[in-house]
């Protein structure tokens, strides 16, 4: 059953799109990640124009983060003060990102920039995850008895920053510039890559800000909803590249896939799961890199100047 997506200006079999949503939803449910960093490249591989893939990806993440954020909020797992500062930073980052996005689109270099940034992030994060999970697997098999985790070191410069603020829920007294900066980076990535940015934000919250793990996921989801919402509005306004129909059809698959994935995950081991996800992330990154370096099938590209 073909369906024409009015902003992507393409027709796809609706089951292919639901299936893609289900696949990414399944993986995100299984691994507990947002899945934006898989959704956007897969949409691009399907032939969706990169600007539409990025903007629609951001829109989809708003939807897929709502119920999780609400659940954490009700459980008291959101540090609101930290969240609002992260969002303020995210808004600035997203604004900058959307501006650069629009500029790159006008210059005809957006597709390249999106691919490059994906290659770097997918390659880097995939490799880190693979190393970490293989290490965990080796430890479990009792090769070497390593200490579970090194103590977090207090970096001096973090305390030298001004605007120190008390975050009761996180039991922290740190400079507000830190969450502002983290939020900005994540907002920027949301706008350029169409991701929620949890894969950057969660490690940053734990290792850089030093937040306790019980508020990390909730606060990050809280920030992601607002920042992806802002990003969606900015992209809709600047480049008209948000495809509501595409994001709704993807969501249908993603919701079902996520439930299924979460169920499968309970039967699998954590480290093995992470190694699997790492391999997948690396594979997607390699496919993107391949696309950048191999001889293009379409060397010429037309961009219409709209009247």
């Amino acid at each position, binding site marked *: 059953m073909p369906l024409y997506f*009015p902003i992507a200006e393409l027709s796809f079999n609706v089951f292919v799109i639901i299936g893609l949503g289900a696949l990414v939803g399944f993986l995100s449910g299984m691994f507990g990640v947002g899945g934006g960093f898989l959704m956007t490249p897969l949409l691009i591989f399907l032939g969706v124009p990169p600007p539409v893939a990025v903007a629609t990806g951001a829109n989809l993440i708003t939807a897929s983060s709502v*119920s999780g954020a609400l659940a954490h909020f009700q459980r008291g797992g959101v540090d609101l003060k930290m969240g609002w500062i992260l969002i303020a930073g995210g808004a600035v980052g997203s604004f900058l990102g959307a501006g650069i996005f629009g500029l790159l689109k006008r210059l005809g270099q957006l597709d390249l920039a999106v691919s490059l940034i994906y290659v770097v992030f997918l390659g880097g994060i995939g490799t880190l995850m693979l190393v970490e999970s293989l290490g965990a697997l080796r430890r479990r098999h009792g090769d070497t008895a390593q200490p579970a985790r090194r103590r977090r070191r207090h970096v001096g410069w973090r305390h030298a920053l001004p605007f120190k603020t008390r975050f009761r829920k996180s039991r922290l007294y740190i400079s507000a510039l830190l969450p502002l900066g983290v939020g900005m980076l994540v907002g920027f990535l949301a706008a350029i890559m169409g991701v929620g940015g949890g894969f950057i934000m969660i490690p940053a919250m734990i290792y850089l800000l030093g937040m306790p793990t019980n508020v990390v996921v909730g606060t990050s989801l809280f920030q992601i909803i607002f920042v992806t*919402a802002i990003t*969606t509005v900015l992209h809709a*306004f600047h480049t008209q590249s948000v495809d*509501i129909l595409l994001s709704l059809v993807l969501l249908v698959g993603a919701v079902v896939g996520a439930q299924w994935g979460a169920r499968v995950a309970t039967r699998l081991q954590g480290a093995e799961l992470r190694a699997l996800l790492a391999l997948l992330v690396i594979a997607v990154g390699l496919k993107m890199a391949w696309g950048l*370096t191999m001889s293009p099938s379409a060397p010429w590209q037309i961009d219409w100047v*709209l009247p």
Partner: protein
Amino acid sequence: MRIRHRPPLLALALLALPPCTSLAGPGGAIEATTTAATTPSPRTRRIVPDVSRDLVELRYDFTGTELLIFGAVNPPAAPHAPIDLVVAIEGPRRTALLRRKQKVAGIWINRLVARLEDAPAFYALSATRPLADIAPAEVRERLEIGAGRLPIAVRRPDGTKSPLAPEARAGFFAALAMNGLYRTETGPQALRIKDGTLFRTRIALPSKLPEGDYRARVLLFEKGRPVAERTLALKVRKAGFERAIFHFAHRLPLAYGIVAVALALLAGWGAGRIFRRR
């Protein structure tokens, strides 16, 4: 997709035409042969073309379609008379920025090559024979027939005349062809004049068909000279729900963005509730 179909009544009516030529004398077909041989009066020969649909609506299930352009040459020509037809469908003309991928440090990067003004977003041509056999180059140039002879202004990015014009043109049509937006077909399979009078050609319209005003030019040549030309207008436009979404996104972008977010929040929240109940 719903399409306004035009029943090919005209074609049926034209089928009845040959007997009408007997007004000039008895024995229509033979009469036509002799007139063509003795008094080649190209001025009097006309073409009566029509198109199977004058409105193509891009709806939710549009995956491309086929356009039928048909008609008759009147009065009919002798079976082997040197007449030729060219049917060219042109999409809306716009300005295009043409970029070419170049390898820089192992990576393919887009480089702006030229700015093409009045470039058609779609061009499909059917002809009874290769264009070079139908009419001399000057004639084709004057009539603007064929991809190479369309009046496209090729400029350098800074607006001056580009020395790369032929290359840029070729690149432009290659890029169109990738999406099925440019095709040239010649020969009897593409377009044939049956019994010296009836003709028809099929033009494939791809799924990535751009919106806008199209025109179909039908030209008749006799011994390399153009003798008649007719133009048909047709429209391609988005329709239904998709059209509404597209126009909403482009005319009220801020409101569209807010609605997109509201929908996402609602859908995400609803989905969460459904699954939590279980």
